């Protein structure tokens, strides 16, 4: 059941209305039932994986809490991690591992039959596995107490707004909220609906429209002018942002409608002036998860500069692998790791020179900020090429395409309108992106956009809300003329 489907538009209000009508004691049970129903819409059988992950980490946390010896606690944690990661590994990486194992063996003369089992990736498995593991590690570290009520814990793992593509919530934030019954609040309803509306705007007005051009170029890149590939790659940067940010925003709005506040997963990432800053603003729940549960346990920056760089590279390689079982995802992660290492080296050298020459750092000029912004955008877009290509061979074809034909005039002779989005819709897209850039700019400056919006006069709010809804209905990619586009992050 996709957020941008009619089924969800019926499912969600029914769940919310019943939630507020039923007695407080059973509210969380209702949400749990709704969440499992929501998950079962993809593949009912895979609900057992969700249940297994839940049971293993629930039981593991209870045992951890009662175990006194360090060794016992470590064994318990290891088992919890092992079982969960094995499930994730089998469903997500078995084909990938077997493929490369086969290749490696063939190098030394051992030929094996190709691994032909077609494993369907359970939707959301990467997200709920990390969320469950985060909880288990928190209990191991004694940061939180283990949850005694199994149903409440099961809801924490399966809460439908964020089940399939995050944000990957921490038990400290979500578990307590889900345990408490929430009374109807008009403010939550109105804010939640507005946030959802904005999420739909991002997804079906921008991301899905941009996807038409990106798919047209990437699916048939051979023989395309190089600037088309560059153009499509820049648009993919926009698409993946609006797609994933759109999902997270709808999830946040849906949760808020029933009184639950989810964390922000994005904070104007494309205004970042360095890759390091980008990762503080992009997929925040994942990057903080990796920081807290991988980077810091690896030693973080506490064990010297070289070790810090190695840790960064490891974390980003794992992050790439987490996104998908393909070398191109690993390359995408490694690129980001490498960017950060280089950034850190440059920054250190700059600091060293500044200190050595006793120069005053001074205030940053606009031109410097602009250059940094442009470089960051360029670097992220370059990495997205590998991400979108899906395989190294495709990435190579795309890079060769860029190198072989750099006739930039194709961008101005209106031939881009033959890629599936007409000139008129391009203008609509520009207006939409301008609105997104404006709102992101406000967020970047630390303004709480929603709060600021609700401080405005009633007529302004009414006009903006009704106008946004009409804009989505008018210009969104939905209905019989369009295929409902799955959210990109569902595949991870």
């Amino acid at each position, binding site marked *: 059941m996709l957020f941008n489907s*009619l089924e969800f538009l019926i499912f969600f209000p029914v769940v919310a209305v019943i939630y507020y009508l039923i007695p407080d004691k059973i509210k969380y049970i209702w949400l749990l039932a709704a969440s499992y129903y929501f998950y079962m819409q993809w593949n009912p059988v895979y609900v057992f994986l969700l249940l297994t992950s839940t049971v293993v980490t629930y039981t593991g946390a209870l045992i951890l809490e009662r175990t006194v010896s360090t060794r016992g606690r470590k064994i318990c944690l290891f088992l919890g991690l092992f079982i969960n990661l094995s499930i994730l590994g089998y469903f997500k990486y078995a084909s990938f591992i077997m493929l490369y194992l086969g290749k490696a063996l063939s190098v030394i003369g051992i030929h094996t039959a190709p691994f032909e089992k077609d494993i369907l990736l359970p939707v959301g498995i990467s997200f709920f596995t990390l969320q469950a593991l985060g909880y288990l590690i928190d209990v191991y570290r004694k940061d939180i107490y283990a949850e005694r009520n199994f149903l409440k814990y099961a809801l924490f793992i399966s809460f439908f707004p964020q089940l399939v593509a995050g944000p990957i919530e921490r038990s400290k934030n979500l578990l307590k909220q889900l345990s408490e019954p929430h009374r*109807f609040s*008009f*403010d939550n309803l*109105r804010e939640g609906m507005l946030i959802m509306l904005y999420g739909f705007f991002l997804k079906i007005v921008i991301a899905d429209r941009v996807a038409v051009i990106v798919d047209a170029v990437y699916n048939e890149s051979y023989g395309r002018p190089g600037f088309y590939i560059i153009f499509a790659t820049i648009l993919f940067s926009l698409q993946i942002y609006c797609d994933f940010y759109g999902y997270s925003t709808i999830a946040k709005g849906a949760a808020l409608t029933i009184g639950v506040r989810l964390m922000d997963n994005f904070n104007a990432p494309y205004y970042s002036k360095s890759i390091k800053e980008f990762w503080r603003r992009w997929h925040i729940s994942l990057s903080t998860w990796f920081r807290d549960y991988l980077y810091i346990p690896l030693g973080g920056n506490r064990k010297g500069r070289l070790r810090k760089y190695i840790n960064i590279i490891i974390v980003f390689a794992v992050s790439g692998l987490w996104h998908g079982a393909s070398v191109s995802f690993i390359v995408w992660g490694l690129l980001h790791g490498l960017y950060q290492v280089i950034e850190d080296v440059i920054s250190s050298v700059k600091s060293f020179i500044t200190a050595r020459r006793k120069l005053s750092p001074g205030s940053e000029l606009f031109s410097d900020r602009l250059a940094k912004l442009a470089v960051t955008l360029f670097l992220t877009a370059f990495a997205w090429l590998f991400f979108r290509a899906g395989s190294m061979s495709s990435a190579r074809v795309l890079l060769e395409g860029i190198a072989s034909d750099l006739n930039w005039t194709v961008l101005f002779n209106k031939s881009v309108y033959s890629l599936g989005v*007409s000139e*008129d819709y391009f203008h609509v897209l520009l207006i939409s992106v301008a609105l997104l850039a404006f709102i992101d700019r406000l967020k970047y400056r630390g303004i709480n956009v929603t709060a600021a919006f609700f401080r405005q006069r*009633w*007529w302004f*709010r*009414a*006009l903006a*809300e*009704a*106008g946004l*809804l*009409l804009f989505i*209905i*008018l*210009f969104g990619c*939905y*209905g*019989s*003329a369009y*295929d409902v586009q799955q959210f990109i992050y569902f595949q991870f």
Partner: protein
Amino acid sequence: MKKNVRNLAQLIPVILIFLAGCRLLDLLYVPEDEWHRILFHSYYTQERNIDQAFIGSSHILCDVEPLLLDEINGYNNFNMSSPQQRFDASYYLLKEMAGDHKLKHVYLECYYLCVTDHEIYDKNSDSVRVSDYIGDPDHFASSWQISYAMKPSLNSVAIQLHASDRDHMIENLIPFVRYREKLFDWEHISDNLSNFRPSSERGYSFHIDYEEPDGSPWYQEYHIKGDNSSNGRVFDSEKIFPKDRDLTRFGIGAKSRSYLCKSIEFCQKNNIPVTLFVSPVLDFQLLSTGDYDRYVTELKSLADGYGIECYDMNLIKREYLDIKRGEYYMDPEHLNTAGAEVYTEALWNVLSDSADNNMSKFYTTYSEKLAAEEPEIYGLYRMPVSGDLTHRDDGNPEIDMQYTIASNRDDMEYTVTNIVGDPASPSGRTEYIIQERNKNNTIVLPSDSHGTLRIESEYEGADLMLEVGY
């Protein structure tokens, strides 16, 4: 509580602005259909005295003349019909009429094209699937138009809610969404704006002019009480029809049957006599269906199940109705005014007579009728050779088209000549014989080729000849 009420009140301007925006966009994008506007204006101005309702698709509005019927039978007759009307809409319209008027008799027209299953291309699954007439997205618009033109009522809401499948639900509820492909079509918008006048100012009749292939003008007019008139005609060169039903394979669709049955049951429950009938079409169209008799039998047995009469006017003997000629038709499936006048009188003669008397006026089957009539070449029907519906409308010239000669004798031998170029100029055209005196009745030509096929036959001493453009 007070805060919640105040907050809820804040939603009112949002809803009002949204509705106003929708209305504005409807005005810009949704063209008002003249037929439905005039039909429902006429219906709502009837003084609760409609006696007889003729309900169905365009067959009713073209073929049955309500004003002529008023003169003949002295009742107030009303055609509650619209183009492509589906049986679910007919059912709710019947309920609406029965609620507003004391109906003395209901006549349901059962044109095979509007009730039978057929194959359609399904975009979602990228495959061909069998669909009922009601479930075919091509026919959603008919119910939308009806519901928009009706005054608000439970029945109009029911028609609207049943109009489409789940995929089209937003189009169903918000009319302008259906015209999103015309979002930047300024001509479409300016056309709609130029027509933006109060209904009363535009009047309640409508006239539109067309041109025949020979250049002669013809018209179509919409009048009150669901009457359409036209002086168009079907020339010999136009006797060609696409095969879009295969009645050998498919019968009445489940949904259509269900609503047809509901309509009959509703009438019987409310003591309103009900009769089924089928209006005539030209024979080359009927022959394109394959086994039309299968449909005749199916409909008849459905009527028998309810103990009601069912008359297929395609099966009537020539001495009672002789209109199977192009001069009586505006197109192969609809009568023109001349045809409708003759037909309306003959129809009423049948409908007002007893079932026993009517029995002798009809052939039992369509095959029986074909065999009983003089040998004749009716025309052609065509279908893509692959039979693959996915390619039917994509304009792909690679697909060959199969043309089948429609005649009433299986053992007829045909000489077929293809005439390419200007048929009026001997020097500017080329003729070549495709086959001579052969029982083969199918000709395959590239779908992007155009010309005229001359079909000749000598049968039992009669020389038959027809030239049809393709």
